[in-house]
């Protein structure tokens, strides 16, 4: 029965797309799948399980599989602290972005009228056409010791000496929230757009308060969008190097920077292991999100 299905598959494929078509698809997707998606990932995994060796030792007796690289992580208090701090800060970024973007998405989807929507969308998208680094740079300037933020606060008499925003995570979190707002707005907006306005009007008509309407109607409906938005934002926050590099300081090291340091010191094996840990983190987070919001893996449009 199995071979019959396989033969049916090939017959139908050839009938539909022709020999060249099928070959084209198989070759391109195959190359992509194997050489760009699977193999590099497996190699990174492989690296993570091998010790760092001098060139001449590779392939020799010292080249064994080992968990050493991972154990290093679990015994290194500093690295673990950084890891958890990264998670925590990313969660903050995600929550902040969600809180800020939810009303905006709702407004765009349900309240604003036609022409306005286009304009507002443009207003949202335009900043994102400017390179992320430059936008973070903007915050670098604003939050500098002689920056506008400090000058404003001193001017208002709230503080006497400039605050070093870069110590601690504040600047990084702020910068990231700024950088990833679009990724939170759009998924939520997309889902909300398809919500029938009449439902809201009907609920209003029956006397429900806005709070209740949101809690009982809008949020459940928008769950897939919220899940996607949160997942993307969290993964971007946890996995980015730019913001921590520009807005952070040695005391606010991000986990990705730890990985980067490893690579700069040519300890690729350690770096690979840490990278794998990061990947696991993201996968687990995504899993949790899917479970909480009971969403399938299909929701991905941008």
């Amino acid at each position: 029965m199995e071979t019959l299905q396989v033969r049916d598959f090939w017959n139908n494929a050839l009938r539909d797309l022709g020999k060249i078509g099928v070959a084209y698809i198989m070759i391109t997707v195959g190359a992509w799948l194997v050489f760009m998606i699977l193999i590099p990932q497996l190699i990174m995994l492989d690296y993570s399980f091998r010790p760092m060796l001098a060139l001449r030792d590779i392939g020799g007796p010292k080249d064994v599989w080992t968990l050493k690289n991972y154990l290093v992580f679990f015994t290194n208090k500093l690295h673990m602290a950084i890891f958890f701090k990264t998670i925590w800060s990313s969660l903050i970024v995600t929550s902040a972005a969600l809180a800020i973007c939810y009303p905006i998405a709702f407004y765009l989807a349900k309240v604003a009228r036609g022409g306005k929507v286009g304009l507002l969308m443009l207003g949202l998208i335009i900043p994102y056409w400017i390179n992320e680094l430059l936008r973070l740079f903007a915050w670098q300037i604003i939050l500098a010791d002689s920056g506008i933020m400090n000058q404003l606060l001193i001017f208002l008499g709230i503080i006497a000496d400039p605050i070093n925003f870069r110590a601690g995570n504040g600047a990084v979190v702020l910068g990231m929230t700024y950088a990833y707002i679009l990724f939170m707005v759009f998924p939520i907006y997309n889902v909300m757009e398809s919500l029938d306005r009449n439902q809201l009007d009907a609920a209003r008509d029956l006397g429900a308060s806005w709070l209740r309407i949101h809690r009982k109607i809008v949020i459940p409906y928008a769950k897939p969008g919220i899940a996607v938005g949160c997942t993307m934002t969290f993964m971007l926050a946890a996995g980015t190097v730019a913001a921590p590099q520009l807005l952070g300081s040695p005391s606010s090291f991000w986990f990705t920077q730890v990985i980067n340091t490893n690579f700069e010191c040519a300890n690729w094996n350690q770096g690979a292991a840490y990278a794998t840990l990061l990947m696991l983190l993201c996968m687990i987070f995504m899993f949790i999100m899917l479970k909480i919001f009971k969403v399938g893996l299909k929701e991905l449009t941008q």
Partner: protein
Amino acid sequence: MKSSKSIFRIVFGAYLALFFAYMFLPLIFMTIIAFNANEVPQITPWKGFTFMWFGELAKDEQMWNALLNSFIVAFAVVAISVPIGLGGALLLTRLQFKARDFVYGVLVSPILTPGIILGISTFLFWDSYMNVPGGLWTAILGQATFITSYCMLLIMSRAQRFDLTQEEAAFDLGATHGQVFWKITLPFLRPALISSVALAFMQSFDNYNTTLFAIGVEQTLPIYIGTKLRSFISPAMNALAVVFIALTIIGAITYEYRRRRELIKTG
């Protein structure tokens, strides 16, 4: 009832205004600073209006080199991502097989993978096993890994709305597979293909995370900016930002203008 509604309106209006101020003010500051003759990029103290930072930017060889690399990488990424994305879209929309959902998940996974991991894995693979040292080639492949996924999704959404009986009719009238694809299917997919090219180009040009880990010692523009910003801050970077902002505004105006013209044309 009515007054609470208008209070709500005012509050929300203020929120909206605050939000867009939050989004745009940093950019406005950036622009102003680019014209300040102060070596420290700040608005105050204001040391006079000048174009000198633009001059300094233009003299920076490293910047031009990085810019060139960015273009090279972007073009290469487009050349790889769009055709493969098309292949993926055709695979998932036209062929029926049991593992379809699984394959879909795997092909879309690069989007969900943190950029640095794509960069690292690509680099390790090509540097260690294929003897291609980190550079433009690895950056291209690292970027293409996930940009292809985006292209595939874009093309898929268009391909799914394709009426297959048109292909059957074309066949029936005597066309070969090649002719059917070229004359019927491709013209239909064209808008999605064009969007893919634009999307791929922009995503590649802008990419930092993946490129950083995959590119070794070479530089694309974002890498250059990152390095510069970490070492020595100069208003020349502001000048660069202004260039970006100007291009973006021109792009946005052109886009909006064309869109309005299309609407008028189709009435």
